[in-house]
């Protein structure tokens, strides 16, 4: 079996194995082992990719093609470039960390881990597919378990949140499907068969009229998942209700499908549409960046703060993608990765704090650093990384985006870039407000003195996420070059 298909097969096998487990202990062990294998494969893939790239110069490597449904020319086609490799690594790490964080999931553990891994399967499949239809199928596989995960294991108004989230994402999927079919039916503009294969379609000149029509559909379809203003409202409620590991996976990985899809499909296949619609969506994205940051200042629920922060940070991803140049795009991808790790860390920490103090209201928390030194220290580090401190991945990403944005000769892009840059100050405000409120200051009275310290599995989960954040932040060159190389063929369509 080829190296990529294994990425889908292993989680499926893990799910099958989970079906036969009896209790929490078995379920978590099986999930952990499965995710460990997955992480090993992802790391191996990075090395294999570099090795393969030396001899193989095509856009996608490790290609595999199987006919799935001949009549409509639907194939199961897989292949990766540097960007998908990075995304797969992100997914593998976040899933494993998520399993560790859910170590004490007492409630229906088997079903929980099964749903979690089904979700992961969808995400893995999405990142390796290069056939639009297969991609869409995996996309749906990833979105559906979310409903169960929030609806069953969530907290607060979980049914409502789960419903809202699923309906909005499904609505987006419907729009997206129309867009994808639109691309499909225009994929023979130069003669030849209709095809779903991205690489084939990219060679075809889709008529401008069609691009103009379908770009917004595809873009919005994906961007809803990437929390584009004003379609972001599923995210705060959804995150607030979701259990910890699900928030981690959702904000850390699932939301990245949005930016990735925009990059892979909307930008690559519909470049003229992107040029036509770019400015309009750019304004929306820029609004999202600033708006999310300002909205985060006023929230009092830890998860809401993080959700709005995600709106702001992922707004930056879409913003960078719409800047349509190499530096900004590379920034967008690194920002996706960086935000994936960081937000997963944040949600994990929030889960730990909530698990101990049973509140997420920042007005009821204070001085936790004193009693929870590990969690406190990591929280401060995460906060600092989140506000773009050099030495962490966020800085690398943001600088790529800002420099990229500023490379535009015209005033419009510049002004928007400056607007986006100003969000770093607002980010500092809400992060420091948060850290100052809950970690520092006097101990709030309703906190019990003897809260349990962080356990080994919590520490493992957190460190798994922290290591790549620092690795990217301290030595970004290997990642940045890998991504830049992979962007090259994609940017050409836009430049021409």
């Amino acid at each position, binding site marked *: 079996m080829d190296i990529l298909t294994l990425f889908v097969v292993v989680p499926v096998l893990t799910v099958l194995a989970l079906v036969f487990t009896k209790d929490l202990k078995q379920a978590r062990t099986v999930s952990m082992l499965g995710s460990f294998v997955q992480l090993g494969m992802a790391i191996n893939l990075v090395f294999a990719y570099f090795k393969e790239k030396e001899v193989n110069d095509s856009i996608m490597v490790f290609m595999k093609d199987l006919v799935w449904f001949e009549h409509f020319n639907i194939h199961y086609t897989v292949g990766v470039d540097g960007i998908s490799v990075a995304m797969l690594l992100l997914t593998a790490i976040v899933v494993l960390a998520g399993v560790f964080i859910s170590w004490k999931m007492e409630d229906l553990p088997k079903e929980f881990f099964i749903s979690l891994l089904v979700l992961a399967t969808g995400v893995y499949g999405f990142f390796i597919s290069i056939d639009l239809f297969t991609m869409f199928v995996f996309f749906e596989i990833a979105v559906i378990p979310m409903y169960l995960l929030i609806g069953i294991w969530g907290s607060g108004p979980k049914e409502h949140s789960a419903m809202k989230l699923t*309906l909005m994402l499904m609505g987006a999927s419907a729009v997206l499907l129309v867009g994808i079919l639109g691309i499909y039916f225009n994929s023979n503009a130069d003669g030849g068969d209709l095809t779903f294969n991205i690489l084939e379609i990219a060679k075809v000149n889709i008529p401008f009229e069609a691009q103009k029509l379908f770009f917004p559909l595809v873009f919005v379809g994906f961007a809803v998942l990437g929390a584009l203003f004003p379609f972001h409202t599923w995210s705060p409620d959804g995150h607030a209700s979701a259990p910890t590991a699900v928030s981690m996976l959702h904000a850390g990985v699932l939301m990245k499908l949005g930016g990735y899809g925009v990059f892979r499909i909307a930008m690559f296949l519909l470049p003229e549409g992107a040029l036509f619609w770019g400015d309009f969506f750019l304004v929306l994205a820029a609004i999202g960046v600033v708006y999310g940051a300002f909205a985060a200042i006023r929230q009092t629920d830890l998860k809401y703060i993080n959700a709005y922060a995600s709106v702001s940070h992922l707004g930056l991803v879409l913003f960078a993608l719409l800047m349509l140049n190499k530096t900004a795009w590379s920034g967008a991808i690194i920002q996706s990765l960086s935000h994936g790790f960081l937000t997963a860390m944040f949600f994990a920490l929030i889960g730990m704090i909530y698990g101990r103090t049973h509140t997420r209201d920042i007005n009821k928390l204070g*001085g936790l650093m004193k009693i929870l030194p590990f969690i406190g220290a990591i929280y401060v580090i995460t906060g600092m990384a989140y506000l773009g401190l050099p030495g962490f991945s966020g800085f690398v990403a943001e600088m790529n985006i800002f420099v990229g944005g500023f490379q535009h000769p015209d005033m419009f892009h510049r002004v928007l870039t400056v607007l986006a840059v100003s969000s770093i100050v607002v980010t500092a405000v809400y992060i420091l407000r948060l850290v100052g409120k809950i970690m*520092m200051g006097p101990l709030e009275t309703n906190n019990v003195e003897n809260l349990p310290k962080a356990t080994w599995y919590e520490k493992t989960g957190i460190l798994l996420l922290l290591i790549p954040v620092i690795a990217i932040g301290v030595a*970004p060159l290997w990642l940045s070059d890998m991504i830049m190389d992979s962007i090259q063929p994609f940017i050409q369509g836009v430049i021409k």
Partner: protein
Amino acid sequence: MDITYIYLIPIIPLAVFLLLGINSKKIKPAVSGYIGVLGLFTSFLLSIYTAYQYFFVIGKIDGEYQQFIDKTTWLNFTDTLHIDMGILVDSISIMMLVVVTTISLMVHIYSRGYMKGDDGYTRCFAYLSLFTFSMLGLVLATNLFQIYIFWELVGVSSYLLIGYYYTKPSAVSAAKKAFIVTRFADLGFLIGILIMGYYTGTFDFETLNAVNPETGMLVLNWASTSFMGLSVIAWGLILIFMGGAGKSAMMPFHIWLPDAMEGPTPVSALIHAATMVVAGVYLVARLFPMFYFVEDGFALNIVAWVGGISSLFAAIIAITQTDIKRVLAFSTMSQIGYMMMALGVSGYDGHEGVGYMASMFHLFTHAMFKALLFLGAGSVIHAVHSNYLKDMGGLRKYMPITNITFLIAALAIAGVPPFAGFWSKDEILVAAFENNQILYYIGVFVAGLTAFYMFRIYFGIFWGKDKKYEHTPHESPMSMAFPLLFLAGMSIVAGLIPFSEYVSADNKGFEAHLNYPLAAIATTVGIIGIALAWVFYKKENSLSDKYAKSFGVLYKWAYHKFYFDELYLFVTKKIIFNRISAPIAWFDKKVVDGTMEGIGNKTVVVSDKIKGMQSGKLQDYAFAFIVGVVVLAGVFIYLWK
């Protein structure tokens, strides 16, 4: 020349930070203190060695101090733009290396005594090392982006150290304020960097600052694009200076500095007096050729005026404050204003560049005596457990070493010969006199004010009323006294270094002469200030209150720091929080989310309405069916006719 060993200077503190930071709970306090001091001592020795090598052995080639650069690519943006990491060795970076490692070493030694018994002893040393690492990285930066990176790291170490007593709400909010205010200023810095990067295609100081030896002008073509009548490069410089002003606590970004005194006193000495706050001055000096040549020094003029005004403003406030650390904080701001002003009035070639040299000289001497003042103040605070002047008095009997060293520092800052401050201040005034008379008069006036407020607190602490103390104050232990003595020694001799030989704008060096008339005026003004303080504060009396009353409103305004804090509070609380953030949060909840929820709710309502049609009665369905058939039949018949 092999300069790679210089990498060790910042890396050793980093290693110490990682060691202490990760194992903060496992390492015994006594051990961690030694680790910190030892690490810094190594860096200190290396810096001294580097300075010796550079200034006396290899630095000067053909009568000009050379730049040595070693760098590697850290991140690629475009084909031409990239961030490098490396070290740049020239006279000012070497000078800063010496300043930072010296002060940091002294502060490390001092902290062993001052922080004894504190919970976070190890944490303190870890943060100090982190700060030292970042500051050294900043000093050695080879390009704008590298300096920005370390700039931010310095900012965060400052945040951590101000918030060192993190259970104290005032410390937490001071830390937050410091970070956010400087972050806001850094926004300007970052945008300035972006502008530079785009219009010049490089971030390297080497390329940006390159001066054509034949024409004596900047190689860079700065006049190609203009925006609102000013070259974009000049705009970039102004924005970069905004970052510098934020970190150096210039108006109007100064509000964080007094609050930053919430940190432990050694930290204030290291960060908020001697090293970090001069980063802005260093930044301007680093880009000095650009500041000087672009638009004929338009941006440099702004630097001069901001420096001069901040200097005056801070000196006036300093007179009225009662917290000795705050007096010192405003004094720092005032002295940094001096340095900025000196840079601003400087020329480039030879003796014309006296302002540049004076600024660096003052930076050097100021670091010594201001650190000494802070450490002395720390020693006093350690003894009487209060920051306030009203709790002090007559301490000279109990603390002889502190008394003497504080006096030396006060004399140095007041500009009394032959102490260090006299020499550097004199050069600054010379530069101002030659280029900008108004700033010169401001400078002289500030010199008088400085002498006055400094002796006000000196007399207030060590003379004045004889207070009865609950616990008899005692002299500090040797670990604290040694740095005081060392720095006092430096404050005496540092002024005698022939600085202009080594540091000058065009790197060629020149011979500076004392300008006797100007020196006499400045010294006289300083002595008048001291004499006034003598009259007012030597003995306990009511003279000062009477005069304070006679100034009325001015006194009140100065006491309240000209209401800058209130202004900022108004802007952040009232405008950002309540006028921007709250409406956005409301808008999100009600309008954006409301629309989405509304669509959902309306769907439910509509489906509730039409639900009745699915009655489940076969006959209704049959009726609908038949009506449908009839209608369709009618339509078809009509159409086919």
